[in-house]
């Protein structure tokens, strides 16, 4: 029982106590749930995540099982053994598609993790410090916006691949894929930095931040405890969009033959089977469809999140 000292508060409190009004996240979820596209996106993303986690259990073959080649069953059309057929290297297409999901997610999440850290740090400093620092950092971000990212990544991946030969770096597993992830992250941060800057700029004059300064809160706590959590909703939308974009970029790098030969990725599948498009289209169409579903999922999810967190922005 609450026994307030000031009697007026009783009436006030008794109204609010029984029904707990929804919080920011919960309100967002209510709005999100009503967005059919967003829910579809969430479903697709959940499907991809599930496949990535469960692929060792549900995949019919081992990912590097080329035995079909020996049986002369490469490039075989879909049948009951190979539900999506086999490709020109004798791999089971379905197995490779399922395993590709984890690579795709690793790329998307990894790249956006790197991009978010860089973006939030740069954008946060720019927005909070303001003045000349802000100006310089934002000009710096602008340089990164006009660099033809994809083209540069191709070159760097290729050149880096030569330089590491014979060094300790070579022992890192999936080095090539790591390089792609880090590079994508290093180039995709400017949009996040811009958003982070705008949010930090808006929030640094918020009354609750001034209240925190008033009681003597340290600058680090102001930034991490008061400003950053309130900037997250806007940033999450960009991250969701970016994951789809990063996955697509990795696919394209691999499709052009600069991917990680050791990784099982959809882009690699496309790369190895594109020449056999005419005879074995299923080996190209299946990974292509997988990319489509994943990117669509993240795009729809981002769309739904925009609606949920910034309801005024749309329609």
């Amino acid at each position: 029982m609450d026994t307030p000292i000031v009697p007026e508060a009783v009436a006030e409190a008794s109204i609010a106590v029984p029904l707990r009004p929804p919080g920011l996240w919960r309100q967002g979820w209510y709005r999100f749930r009503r967005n059919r596209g967003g829910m579809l996106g969430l479903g697709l993303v959940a499907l991809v995540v599930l496949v990535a986690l469960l692929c060792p259990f549900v995949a019919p073959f081992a990912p590097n099982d080329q035995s079909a080649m020996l049986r002369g069953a490469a490039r075989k059309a879909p049948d009951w053994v190979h539900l999506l057929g086999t490709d020109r290297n004798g791999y089971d297409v379905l197995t490779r598609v399922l395993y590709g999901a984890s690579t795709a997610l690793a790329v998307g999440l990894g790249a956006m993790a790197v991009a978010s850290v860089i973006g939030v740090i740069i954008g946060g400093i720019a927005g909070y410090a303001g003045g000349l620092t802000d100006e310089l950092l934002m000009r710096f971000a602008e340089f990164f916006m006009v660099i033809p990212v994809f083209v540069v990544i191709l070159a760097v991946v290729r050149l880096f691949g030569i330089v590491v030969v014979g060094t300790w770096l070579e022992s890192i597993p999936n080095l090539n894929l790591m390089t792609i992830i880090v590079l994508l992250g290093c180039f995709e941060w400017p949009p996040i930095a811009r958003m982070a800057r705008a949010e930090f700029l808006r929030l640094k004059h918020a009354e609750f931040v001034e209240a925190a300064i008033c009681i003597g809160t340290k600058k680090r706590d102001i930034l991490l405890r008061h400003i950053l959590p309130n900037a997250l909703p806007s940033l999450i939308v960009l991250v969701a969009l970016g994951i789809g974009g990063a996955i697509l970029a990795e696919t394209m790098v691999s499709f052009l033959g600069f991917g990680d030969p050791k990784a099982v990725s959809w882009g690699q599948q496309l790369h190895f089977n594109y020449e056999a498009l005419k005879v074995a289209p299923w080996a190209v169409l299946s990974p292509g469809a997988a990319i489509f579903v994943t990117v669509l999922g993240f795009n729809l999810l981002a769309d739904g999140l925009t609606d949920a967190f910034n309801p005024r922005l749309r329609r």
Partner: protein
Amino acid sequence: MTPLLDVADLAVHFPVFRGPLRRKAGTVRAVDGVSLQVFRGETLALVGESGCGKSTLARAVLRLQEPSAGQLRFEGQDLLRLDRRAMKAARRRMRMVFQDPHASLNPRLRAGEIVGEAFDIHGCTRRERDAGVAELLTLVGLGPEHAARFPHEFSGGQRQRIGIARALALHPSLVVCDEPVSALDVSVQAQIVNLLMELQERLGLSYLFISHDLHLVEFIADRVAVMYLGRIVETAPIQSLYAAPLHPYTQALLAASPSIDPDRRHQHVVPDGEVPSPLSPPSGCAFHPRCPFAIANCRAEMPPLLTLAPGHDVRCWRAGEWAAAPQRAAIPVGS
């Protein structure tokens, strides 16, 4: 008696930049040479129209905004000379209650975390903090069980109670209240004002109470300072200000605020025109373009702050006339 807070000639100027090269185009003198004192246990109300600089002054007092010039003494210490450590210690003793209870509470923190933050910062143990939070929440009329809730689960009035509890953590001596009730429903305003007055009595607090509502001020304040365009134009004990306002601006403010007192009702002296831009304030007395009693001298020279009665200071060339004939002070009817 030395004042708890002694503000002397405080100025806050904002440079205004224009154009692509960010050339300095002028200066907004938001606060321009303000002196005031808050004594222990009293409430000084700072009154003025929006944009007169009263909120900037409040923020400068708490060093949320660095003053451009002037002196700021709090509990005998020169606030503007303190290093970070001493400033942090001083922040234990002075606090602020903000205007908008929806914006002043971090939506991501629970009420207990908001109120308890000061305890964490100033090195209290977890147990001390939890006990302190419970005590403070009870003190402001909520209960310890509210500590686990988020701001959105409270009504506006309850949120302002949390804001007050936060301000009272670790026993401050001065609380700056920046229009603490103007964002609340009228029915809740009285509750919060009562709470503030009750707390003052119980804890021996001093308030610098900022408001535009003269009726509220009459209810809560011991002394009033009226501000116009960055300057104090009149300071007076509450009775003498309401009985015999000496500055035409104060008179106009009193006349403009709706009153149920039939004797006051006809005397509408709504100042003509807009508040001038603080970027280019009028020459002389800043109020002269809107003042019905302006004389030539008002345009030429800024009047000094004259003490016409004990504790009653006015910045007006003709204040002597009003003081001599208090009856005709507020009769600009029909002008």
